[in-house]
Structures are given as structure tokens and as C-alpha cells.
């Protein structure tokens, strides 16, 4: 196996205490501006100069050797995971997260009750990657010579290549644990700046190679999977080392950033200057700016800051045809269809996004969580609808159904002040205020307010007043905060489930307001039915939450998991059910995707979604920009 030819200096770890603290801050949603500890030096090999003067040392949380920091066969940091300790209690390891080191006494019971899972029935992932299983790296010497001449760092190491052969779909993780991908990249390259990317794309065109851009690797649409039938050398273009903020323009409140920067670094580094983008997808610890642009990502605080398409002022992309960009950085222009919209959502099929000018905002003075309990999901949705109508949605407002409420409950730790106080509070609520609320029907909305203190309090009152009209009762700040924490740790939970025959996944859609309830009910019922038909022994967990509100509709997010004992081909069964659920969504007037994108997972519905002509329009752009299909990841079209 060819080893990495040129190691860049500093393969440093993000696991320092300070970064752990940072993680904690992100998870809890408090982004304070604290000085970052300089963990790594600037990449010494970087030939690039930031045009406008960089705002500090360019280094990211994510090393080139991702496996040193991150799990190779699961989600997140190596040191953070759910386990069952010797007493058989669930526990979250590591110090990065607030939940770290805590015991979750009721989780085991919840898991047994919900999935019929048992600690006695355990599956084990293979412990390490078996390098011999990995398809060999096939790269022509001529290309390697040209590549070496550019001084761009690369690797043909099997681990490096496998790590970039997948995103985080269930089947991908399953393959890592129990099998091997049929096709993985042949070589990984680490450009450190725009010019590097230009060179790589030129070489790819010259040698007729296939490039697959790799950002944070958090894709959940099979977008990163290599097409099995691709015969050319596949180059994984890892953007993680292009992670500098090139400049900050305080007058216009914009920042120009290299596309490989991951969310947490972007926010932390901006925070040093007192700014933020406010873009917080649940994957923000690992997903990259370029990835967001390429998938049309959406962050939890979109009500204030907008989705990625609302934030982007300028995009620079390298394509086989050349570089696409605009001549100015203006808030809006009327120059035909916006070319940004060809780029956003292009999912790596047209070129590599290298630099993005993005809107920034001063870090908000004050943040406050909140929560409201509703007697049932219907009332909750009605309330969110009204909030949207009055256009007074807080930075984030989410409504979880009863099953998810119970799920959240199962994650209550034994110790830790905020949790106990919450719990006690909740118990008291049950006895006093919640009378008439059926704990098996009620649902909870979690809220996050942001802004200056006075306005937040005012805003808070307005929202709670509306909630009251719909039978809602304020249920405390902690409850809200816990809700948001859940979304960060849930990805870790899947790995635990996998150890005990439980597989699961999430998927999302957007839907007009009047169809939200019907869609939620029907999709859940469809999942339950399909499971039964496919021989799933235990009723699945199928639960949803409304995660975003818009004027004309909402984004709905589903979790779906089941115990697969007794099923010989769980992934196949799982995929059939997910497919049925998607059919159900479409039949209920929901969209193919609100923010996860299409990738290869949802391609089959594209025509139905945007019509023949629509698809043809996209195709013709692809044909013009990339006639030889250099960006051949086969997503979308």
C-alpha cells in the first residue's frame, strides 16, 4: 500500500481540553467569544496567500488523518460514545459534551421497552479496518508525477481512502462495521487553497480522472459514495485543509471564507472578532461551508439568520470549464437566473466550491431557551402555525411528538444540576399544572431566543402568549435546552443501537401547513405497517418533529428505528421501508428533501419532483460545465 507521500506538518489533535470546552459550548448553544488556543501551526506547505489578509492562524479542528480524532466506523469523536457500563447502565463517555461521563439510569429500560432490545443480544463491529479488504488504489504514474509537481499533499493509504468513501447513511455505517465498499477513492488529495484546487481540476481533466469533493463527510444522501461502475481513477478532494477565514468586512458584515472550514471552527473564529454566521446545522461540528453550499443546508436558527441560500453573498467555484464567480459582492442583483442557484445544491457534480463570502452578524448579547407543553400534537402544530403567521418565530422553534418527548426523557442523567432540577420540576408539573395532560399524548415545543436581552424577553412573552391560546403551558428552560442537546447526541446513539440489533435513521421533508398533521400521521403509520409487513418483530420507533417554520409551511423531521433481530437482511428491509416512507411523504404533498439533499439515495424521485423539463435544465447545465463528467459522483441527475 502506498503511504502518504508528503505529510503536512502538524497532524494535531482537536482533543485538547480547550476544544472539549468549546464543544460543550456549542452543544449547549452558548457561543461565547473565547480566545482559541493555537493548536496547530499554519500549514507550512501552503503556497497560498489570503487575498485580504487572514484573520489569524489557519488551522482547523479536523486533521488530515481524520481517523486519529474521529471514529472510522461510526459517528463523531473517538472518545465520545454511549456505552452500557458494568452495572448495565447507559453512560456517555468522554469530556467533550455536557453529557460526558454521566449515567443515564432510565435509558436501558426505554431501549428495552421501545425496541424489545436486550443487553444480552449484542452485535460487534469489526474492531479495525481490514486493510486487505479495501479495493486497491489504481492511479497512473503520469498523474502522480504531475501531482507531485504541484506539491499538493495526497495519500493512497487504505484507511484514508475508506474514510472518504462514505457519509453517514445507515447502510454506509453498516458496511463499515460488517463489510466493505465495492468502490472507494483511489487517492485522497488535500488542497490548501483555491489555486491548489484549480491545479487538481486541471490535472483531472488532463488525465481524465473522476473527482469527488469531500467536505466534512456528514452527507446523509449517499452523496459521497463512489459509483461502483466508475472505471477511472477516483480522486477524493478533501477540502478540510482549506479552512481559513480570508477576511472579515465589518462595514458590510461579510466574511470571505475558504470552503473547507467546518462549522465549529467558523463560528469560533468569527467569535474571536465578535461575529457569527448563525448557521447551525446539527452536524456543525463536522460539516463544512462548502458542503453546506453544495447541499443547500439549513441551520436550526434559520428564522433569524436564514438558510445557506440567504447567507451566501458570493461563491467561487472551480469547474472543468474554468472558474465561475460574479463581478461584485452585492445583496441582490437582477442578471438573469442567479447562477448561485446552479451551484447551491449541485452536490459536487459541477465543481469544487473554494471560497464563499458569507453574511456575518454580531454575536447576540443574550440567549434563552424555553419550552412549552401542549396537550397533544395537533394543538402544538396549530400553535406553530400561528407563530409563523404572526412572523414571530424565535431563532429556533421545534415541536417534538410524544414519542420523542419520551425519548428525551430516557436520556436524563443521574447527576448534573440542570437535569435534576428539570426533572423535579417536571414531576411537580405533572402533579400540579399538567393535570389533564396525558403523558402519553402530550408533546413539547422547544424554543431558543436570541438577541438583546430586552427584546428576547419581550419576544418570549409574545410566543408564550400565543402558546397559551393553544393550550400550551410553559415548561421551563432546561427542558428546551435538553431538547437541543438530544439532536447532537442522537447520532452517537445510533452507534449504540447498532451494537444491540437496533438500526435507525432520520429523514426530513418540507410540507405546506395544512398538510403537516396528515403527513406526520400517515408517514408514521406507513412505517409501522411496512415494518409489520416486512417481518419486523417489534413495533418500530417512528417519531417526528416539526423543526422549522416558514410562512407557507414547515420542515418535518422523522426518526425511525427498529430492532432487526430475526431479519436476515436488515439493511435491505430498512431501505425498503425508508423508500415506502418517502413515497408516502410525496403522496402527502411533502417535498423530496428540505435540506439533506438528493445524492444518490433519492435520485429516483427527481423527475417526479421537478418534471422532465426541469431535470433537462439541470442536465444541460451539467453538460456544459462538465462535459466529460470529471465530477462523476453521479448525484442528483
Amino acid at each position, binding site marked *: 500500500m502506498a503511504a502518504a507521500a508528503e505529510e503536512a506538518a502538524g497532524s494535531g489533535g482537536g482533543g485538547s481540553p480547550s476544544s472539549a470546552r468549546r464543544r460543550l459550548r456549542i452543544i449547549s448553544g452558548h457561543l461565547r467569544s473565547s480566545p482559541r488556543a493555537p493548536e496547530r501551526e499554519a500549514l507550512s506547505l501552503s503556497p497560498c496567500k489570503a487575498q485580504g489578509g487572514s484573520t489569524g492562524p489557519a488551522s482547523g479542528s479536523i486533521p488530515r488523518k481524520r481517523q486519529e480524532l474521529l471514529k472510522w466506523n461510526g459517528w463523531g469523536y473517538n472518545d465520545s460514545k454511549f456505552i452500557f457500563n458494568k452495572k448495565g447502565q447507559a453512560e456517555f463517555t468522554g469530556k467533550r459534551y455536557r453529557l460526558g461521563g454521566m449515567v443515564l439510569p432510565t435509558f436501558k429500560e*426505554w431501549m428495552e*421497552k*421501545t*425496541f*424489545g432490545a436486550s443487553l444480552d443480544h449484542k452485535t460487534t463491529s469489526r474492531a479495525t479496518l481490514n486493510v486487505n479488504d479495501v479495493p486497491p488504489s489504481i492511479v497512473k504514474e503520469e498523474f502522480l508525477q504531475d501531482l507531485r509537481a504541484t506539491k499538493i499533499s495526497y495519500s493512497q493509504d487504505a484507511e484514508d481512502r475508506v474514510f472518504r468513501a462514505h457519509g453517514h447513511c445507515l447502510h454506509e455505517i453498516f458496511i463499515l462495521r460488517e463489510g466493505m465498499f465495492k468502490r472507494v477513492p483511489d487517492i485522497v488529495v488535500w488542497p490548501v487553497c483555491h489555486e491548489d484546487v484549480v491545479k487538481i481540476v486541471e490535472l483531472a481533466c488532463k488525465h481524465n480522472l473522476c473527482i469527488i469533493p469531500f467536505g466534512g463527510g456528514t452527507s446523509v444522501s449517499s452523496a459521497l459514495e463512489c459509483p461502483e461502475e466508475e472505471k477511472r481513477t477516483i480522486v477524493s478532494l478533501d477540502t478540510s485543509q482549506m479552512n481559513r477565514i480570508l477576511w472579515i468586512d465589518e462595514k458590510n458584515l461579510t466574511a470571505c471564507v475558504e470552503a473547507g472550514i467546518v462549522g465549529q471552527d467558523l463560528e469560533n473564529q468569527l467569535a474571536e472578532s465578535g461575529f457569527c454566521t448563525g448557521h447551525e446545522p446539527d452536524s456543525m461540528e463536522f460539516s463544512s461551508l462548502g458542503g453546506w453550499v453544495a447541499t443547500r443546508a439549513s441551520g436550526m436558527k434559520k428564522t433569524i439568520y436564514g438558510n445557506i441560500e440567504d447567507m451566501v453573498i458570493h461563491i467561487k467555484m472551480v469547474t472543468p470549464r474554468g472558474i465561475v464567480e460574479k463581478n461584485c459582492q452585492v445583496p441582490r442583483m437582477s442578471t438573469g437566473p442567479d447562477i448561485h442557484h446552479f451551484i447551491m445544491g449541485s452536490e459536487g457534480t459541477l465543481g469544487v466550491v473554494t471560497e464563499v463570502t458569507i453574511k456575518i452578524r454580531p454575536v447576540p448579547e443574550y440567549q434563552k431557551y424555553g419550552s412549552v407543553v401542549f396537550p397533544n*400534537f395537533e394543538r402544538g402544530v396549530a400553535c406553530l402555525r400561528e407563530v409563523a403567521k404572526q412572523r414571530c418565530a424565535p431563532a429556533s422553534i421545534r415541536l417534538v*411528538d*410524544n*414519542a420523542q418527548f*419520551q425519548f428525551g426523557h430516557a436520556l436524563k442523567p443521574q447527576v448534573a444540576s440542570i437535569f435534576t432540577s428539570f426533572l423535579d420540576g417536571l414531576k411537580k408539573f405533572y402533579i400540579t399544572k399538567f393535570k389533564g395532560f396525558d403523558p*402519553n*399524548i402530550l408533546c413539547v415545543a422547544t424554543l431558543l431566543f436570541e438577541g438583546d436581552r430586552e427584546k428576547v424577553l419581550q419576544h418570549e412573552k409574545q410566543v408564550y402568549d400565543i402558546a397559551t391560546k393553544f393550550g400550551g403551558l410553559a415548561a421551563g428552560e432546561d427542558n428546551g435546552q435538553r431538547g437541543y442537546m438530544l439532536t447532537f447526541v442522537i447520532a452517537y446513539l445510533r452507534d449504540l443501537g447498532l451494537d444491540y440489533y437496533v438500526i435507525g435513521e432520520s429523514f426530513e421533508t418540507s410540507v405546506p401547513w*395544512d*398538510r403537516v398533521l*396528515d*403527513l406526520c*400521521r*400517515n408517514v*408514521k*403509520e*406507513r*412505517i*409501522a*405497517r411496512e415494518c*409489520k409487513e416486512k417481518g419486523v*418483530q*417489534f*413495533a*418500530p*420507533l*417512528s*417519531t417526528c418533529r416539526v423543526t422549522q417554520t416558514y410562512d407557507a409551511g414547515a420542515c418535518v423531521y422523522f426518526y425511525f428505528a427498529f430492532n432487526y433481530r430475526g431479519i436476515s437482511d436488515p439493511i435491505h428491509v430498512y431501505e425498503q421501508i425508508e423508500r415506502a416512507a418517502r413515497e408516502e411523504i*410525496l*403522496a*402527502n*404533498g411533502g417535498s423530496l428533501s428540505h435540506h439533506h439533499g438528493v445524492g444518490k439515495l433519492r435520485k429516483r424521485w427527481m423527475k*417526479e419532483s421537478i418534471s422532465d423539463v426541469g431535470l433537462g435544465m439541470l442536465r444541460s447545465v451539467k453538460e456544459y460545465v462538465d462535459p466529460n463528467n470529471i465530477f462523476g459522483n453521479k448525484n442528483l441527475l
Partner: protein
Amino acid sequence: MAPPITRCPRPPPRLPQRSGQPSRGGAGQWVPREVAAAGRPLRRGRAAERGAGRRGGARRTMAAATAAAAPGRGRRGAPMYSKELTSKKRDEFEDILEERRLSSDLRYAMKCYTPVIYKGLSPCKPNAIKSAVLQSEQVQYVIKQLAKEMGESSDIIQEEAMEILDEMGHNMQLGAVRFFAFTLSKIFKQLFQRVCVNEEGMQRLQHAIQEHPVVLLPSHRSYVDFLMLSYLLYTYDLALPVIAAGIDFLGMKIVGELLRRAGAFFMRRSFGGNRLYWAVFAEYVKMMLRNGYAPVEFFLEGTRSRTAKTLPPKFGLLSIVMEPFFKREVFDTYLVPISISYERILEESLYAYELLGVPKPKESTSGLLKARRILSDNFGTIHIYVGQPVSLRTLASGRINRCPYNLVPRHLPQKPSEDIQEFVSDVAYKMELLQIENMVLSPWVLVAAVLLQNLPAMDFELLIEKTLWLKGLTQTFGGFIEWPDNLCAKKAVMSGLTLHSNIARLVDGHVVLNDKGVEDGAVGEIVFKHALAILMCATYRNQLLNVFVRPSLVAIALQMTRSFRKEEVYNCFSFLRDVFSDEFIFFPGISLKDFEEGCFLLTKCDAIQTNQQEIYPTNKGSVIISFLSTMFRPFVEGYQLIFRYLAKEAKEAFTEKQFIPGVRNFVFQLLEKGNTQCYEALSSDMQKNALAALVQLGAAKKKKMSNGFTYNVNQEAINKILDMFDARIPVQKPVAARL
């Protein structure tokens, strides 16, 4: 009058909460249906339970209620209806009157009535439902539209809508239900010997009601149908349905109001132009359905079949009840075909008069009171077979792919797409065919069929022999005969004759039609009396026809073409099938499959042999072939008579009102002169169907005028059809690609 409502002394038993609702308290082990069923036994009073227990071991347990339908692929041609040709298992029957005869009707009427309800239901008073309908976006939208168009204030139209609702809406009250339970017990015991029900069917229905909104689709032969069905549901402690009944009932004031309180709601027979009425009505039905307040019941046939032959389905109501599913306002909807067969139909003579053009007495309370004398009569046994609930979702899967309702707000009135219309029509036919499959045939039905081929008189012993023979044939063809096990053929035929002594009787070892008064009287009267007797008798034979029609049309085609070439026979079959498409029930667009089924059944009874290209009648087959074609001769001849009339006599443009008496006179004269023996051509039902067939074959045009429909015929085209009948020219049909 109505006894007071009693309070239920014990808490109603409930099925254990099913785990299929993940949002409610997480999940748990699947509860298999059978177990869930055990949680709440279907109850029908103690005696019945004992009875069931006794036989418990021997009884078949029915498979869980899964949709009967195999999802059809694509459009027509690969239909969602495919009949099972191997003999199918059917449930056994229980007599519900048996227990009524043993215990107090009053106690029965006052019993604890706590029907199981739809899982998502929040109970609601009729008035609240009405105001919800009125306030619904759907109705409000139409009100606003009309107000704008007519320049009136929407308040006025709103009031109008309220009136419509009052006229229409049901007003179910337990008191009325109990009153009905009591009186109907008395009346039914008087009228009928037995009322037999397949209890497994009721059990399946009980589950279905809890799971999804349910639409009951009974066959319609008598006014007794919906009374009986409600009675039945009450007996089994199931939710009473709201019934879409014709508005002519409203003529009967007291009864009408009572019916309304028992859960009927009323619909004007025709409200084509009235948008407000349509909107209110449709929303009312959908509201009942969406919220699962009660099963919705209506008759696919639209009206009582006067001939006991299933009428071609009407699509309006069906498409209304399917809409909530299309719009995904409900997850699924169960359609439940129900076959109600009468050994003797209450209205039999009324129907015969009506078919012959003697005006039908308007339903009035006094009319019904006069009908009391009927009470002294015996009407034998009723069989009610509650079919497998059919999941609309299953039917639609793979059929309705595109989502036509996604791009328009769901409350806007929207004409269904062609796809959907076609689907609705297919479902309607499918449900009727399912009704037909489970329709019980009594021995008398066989007797009538044999007798009509052997008029004026038939040797009793021969009749018995032939009846037995026909029994075998009917079973081969998949007919559902209830022939009491221990009853010898003679007794069965005898008991049929006794029950139907008004139709036929035994004279000197011969069976003759009971057309008393024929001997003396004017020629016209003789013809009329004779026609009356024949039509009444035909009502029973007719119950066989839809079971027999496919093999019979093959048999007729064999005779007409005098050819053995499959292709020719098929062309003729297909022609006949088209001609009779309103007369008998064929699933749309599967002519070839029907032909194959006909051939298969004929092969099964050894009447024919087939190879790739040819069909041969066997030696012993000629008896069967000729019996089958004779069975349908009245239709073949009748249609020809009617066509001949139209080809010769019809004026430029005519209405149905002009056509019926015209053709009746024409046939009447031929009968008087003895130029034909086809009495059945006097039936207005056949006349209308024949005209409709011409329209469908393109030989007549139907135009909507202010005063109804007018028709124009194309003489040449009719003559051509007549020539095909006479086999003077070969049937011209595009040849199917492969046989």
C-alpha cells in the same frame, strides 16, 4: 314511543390499546389481530355465545383481515380485479333471529349498546358535525363563490346551506335506535324465517371499524336492506352506519324522521346542477368518514335493482368517499362489500308491475301501512354475507402514482383526473363483482331457471332432476348455493314452491306458472298476466346470470358463429359482452380475460375442449351449451326486438319517456300476435339497457337537454348490429393480439 335511553351498567369492554401508534406511549410487542380480537369478543347476547362455543372447535378461523385485492399494475389490461377460479372457502352462517325468538325483544332493545369506535375518534354530537360541515373551508369556499356570482350576501346562501344540511343530516339518537331494534325484531320475526349472517365477516368488520374509516357497500334489492344492515350492526354491537338514502323517503314523514334518528341521511336523487347541495353533501359525507364518526353506507347500484340482477355501479358517492384517501386526509379507507340475498323479495310483485310500466306508488307512510298485510306472508330466509374489507390504499398502490392533489389546496372543488375517474370506476366494478361472488343462491333460484326453460309446464320429477343438475353446474361456476345439508332435492324444490306459491304451483305432477286469470280475459290481459308471472320468475333466475354470463356468452358465441376458430368465437364473445355491458357486470377492459374465464369454466364442466386455435364442444357438452344459451336467450332476443323497433320506428329525436311506451307497445303487439315469445322484452329495465348499449356502441347519441336526455339513433348502425346478431355478417372487432 321510543323507550328511554338506559345507562350502561358496566364499563364498556375495550380492546387492548394496539401498539401500532408509535406516538402514543412508544411501542411494544405487536399485538396480532387474532389476539386483539380475543380482547373483545364479538357479542350478540349470551345464547349466541354459547352456540358459538359449542361449535367453536369445528369452525374455521378466518385469516386476518388483509386486503382481498392484489394490487393491479398499470392501467386497464392488468386489472386489479381477478376472480379466483378455484373454489373458495366461505364463512358459515348464523341465524340471528334464532335468539330473538328465544328471549325478550324489549330487553334486547334496551341492552347495553357500546359499539367499538375508530381509534382516532373524538365523539361528537350530530349538531356539532353539522356546524363543522357548514364552517368547513370546502363549504365556505363554495358559499363565497356563489355569493359572488349571484351578487347575493353570503349569509343568505349560508342559510340555504343550513337548510340543506337539516334536510340531509342524520340525527342519530339512541332512543330511536332502540325503538327500531324493538320494532324491527317484531317485524323481521314475522316476515322472515331466518336471517343468516357470516359471523366471521362481522368480526372482520369490527376490526376494520377501529382501524380505518369504513364504507359499507351492500347490494340493493329491497328497502329492507338498510334497515336490516343497521339492525345487524346493532345486534353485534357495532357502530350504526350513516346511510345515504334516496330522498323519496322523506315523503314518509314519521318514518322518515325516525330513520333519520336511526342514522340515515338523505340525498336528493339528482342534484347535478346544484353546486351548493353537492358541496354540502360531499363535505358531510367526508366529515363523517375522515373523523370516523360512523361507517358510511350507500348503495353502489344507486337504487334497488328491480330485476335482482346487479345494476351497473354509480360513481358519484364512491368518488366522494374515496377522496379523503386520495388527499391523504386519512391513511386508508376500508370498503366492505356486503351481499344481501333474499329467498323471497318483499317487493317482488311491485317490481314486476313497475317493469311493465304500471306506475310505482310513491313511498308514503300510508302505503307502508298498507304493506302491513304483507306481514302475514312468509318471506323465507335472508342471507347477509359481509365480505372481506378491502383496503383502498392497497387497491390504489401502483395505480395512482402521481399526486394530483398536491398542487391545489385540498379544499378547492376539483374535478377528478381521468386516471382517478378510471380508478373509481374500476373499484366500483370490483366491489360489485365481490358482492356477486358472495351472493347466496337458494334452491329456488335454480328451480326458476330450469322452469323458465320448460314452459308452460314441466314434469315435477324432471324439474327436480334438472335442478340438481344445475346445482352441480352452478357450483362448478363458483356460485354460492346454500342448500341445507340434510335436505333432499325433492324437499328443497317443494319448499321453494311453497314459499313462492304466488309464482308457480304444482298441478297434476306438473309445475306451471301461477298466472291465474289467464284462461279468461282479453288477449291483452292474458299477455300482461303472463308477462307478470314470467318477470317475477325471472327475478329469481336472474340471480344466477352474473355467475353464468361468461361461459354462457362463450356458448352463445359458439352457436352464433358456427365456427370452432377461437379468434372468431372471441370476436363474437367480445361483441356480445359490449352489447350487454349494462345488463351484466363486467370488469372494464378485460374482455379477453373474461373470455378465457368462460372457456376455462366450460372446460371444467367438460362442455368444451380447446387448443391454441380452436374450441370444440364435446359430445356431452351440447346439453350444457344449449342450456346456457337458452338461459340468456331472452336477452339476445329481447335486445334484437328492441333494436329492431329502434331501427324501424324511432323518430328523429326522442326521450326515454317516449321510447319506453313505444317499444313496449311494439313488443306487446308482437306478443299478442304470437310473433314472439320473448315476454322479458317488455321489461323497461331491459329496454333502457338496450338503449344504453346502443349509445355505448356508437349507434345512438345521447344529448343533454333542458328537460332531460334525448336520443338520436343511427339506423344504419343499428341494422349492422342486428346483422351481427343474425350472423349475417361476421362480427367486426379488432382482433386481440394473442389468444
